[in-house]
């Protein structure tokens, strides 16, 4: 995309992303928080599309939609006040964590600005699907395989943990069978 086009897409979506990201933690209602997060990461997908790789952007959009919906689903299940109607304050030490977060953000920003990154202008197209495919199947196959296997373990583990009665099939204490 042309640099103007990129800028046009980048700035608004960056703004939306940051604002929605912030509001995720300030809203009372959990469903809204989940969907705000979905919005934030979805817009991030758009930024990916604008900046570099089409494939990654689309993939981000696809992934985030499913994930954030599940996130919302879980929050509704496990939060004491999903609707945010009882005005519970779900936070602690807000001020200190905010201060720390700001400090870290500023630190990283400073680092980003200070270090002189190798400013190679974009000669060719960003790596498109074919290149990524060859990369995945070529040089980085091993790590991708490894990642794949880890995900498998995680899924199996997750399911086992979530199964009623936990790993050993014991009846949950006090809970129904």
């Amino acid at each position, binding site marked *: 995309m042309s*640099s*103007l086009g990129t*800028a046009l897409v980048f700035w608004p979506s*960056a703004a939306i*992303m940051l604002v929605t*990201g912030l509001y995720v*933690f300030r809203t009372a209602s959990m469903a809204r*928080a*989940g969907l705000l*997060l979905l919005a*934030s990461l979805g817009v*991030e997908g758009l930024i*990916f599309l604008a*900046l*570099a*790789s089409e*494939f990654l952007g689309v*993939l*981000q959009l696809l*992934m985030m939609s499913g*994930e954030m919906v599940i*996130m919302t689903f*879980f929050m509704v299940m*496990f*939060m*004491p006040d999903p609707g945010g109607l009882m005005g519970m304050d*779900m936070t*602690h*030490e807000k001020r*200190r*964590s*905010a201060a720390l*977060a*700001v400090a*870290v*953000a500023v*630190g*990283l*920003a400073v680092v*980003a*600005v200070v270090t002189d990154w190798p*400013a*190679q202008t*974009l*000669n060719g197209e*960003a*790596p498109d699907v074919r290149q*990524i495919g060859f*990369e*995945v199947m070529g*040089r980085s196959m091993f790590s*991708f395989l490894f*990642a794949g296997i880890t995900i498998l373990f995680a899924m199996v583990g*997750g399911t*086992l*943990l*979530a199964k*009623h009665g*936990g790993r050993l099939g014991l009846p*949950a204490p006090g809970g129904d069978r």
Partner: protein
Amino acid sequence: MISLPVVLGVGAVMFGIGLYGVLGQTNAIMVMMGVELMLGASMLNLIGFMRYAWPDAASGAFFVLIVMTLMALEAAVGFALVISVFRNRRTAELDDLTDLKG
């Protein structure tokens, strides 16, 4: 218009927000959302590098893929843990779950 420091700056801010969420929230799931945001920030940085610093490095893209799977993975395992904890303690509030105290 847009150069690498700008993208990294936005990424840093997003990371900050994520961190605020992680540190500020009492509920396990909100903390996980914070983590999701931080991971998103890292992806943003990676994309920034891909665009402005190392455009021909396909491994950058590959890395983004890895982070994406990581986000999904982290969420999945997180939820599983929260489910099992919730089943035992009927709560996912971190302030109540302090049994591993020293």
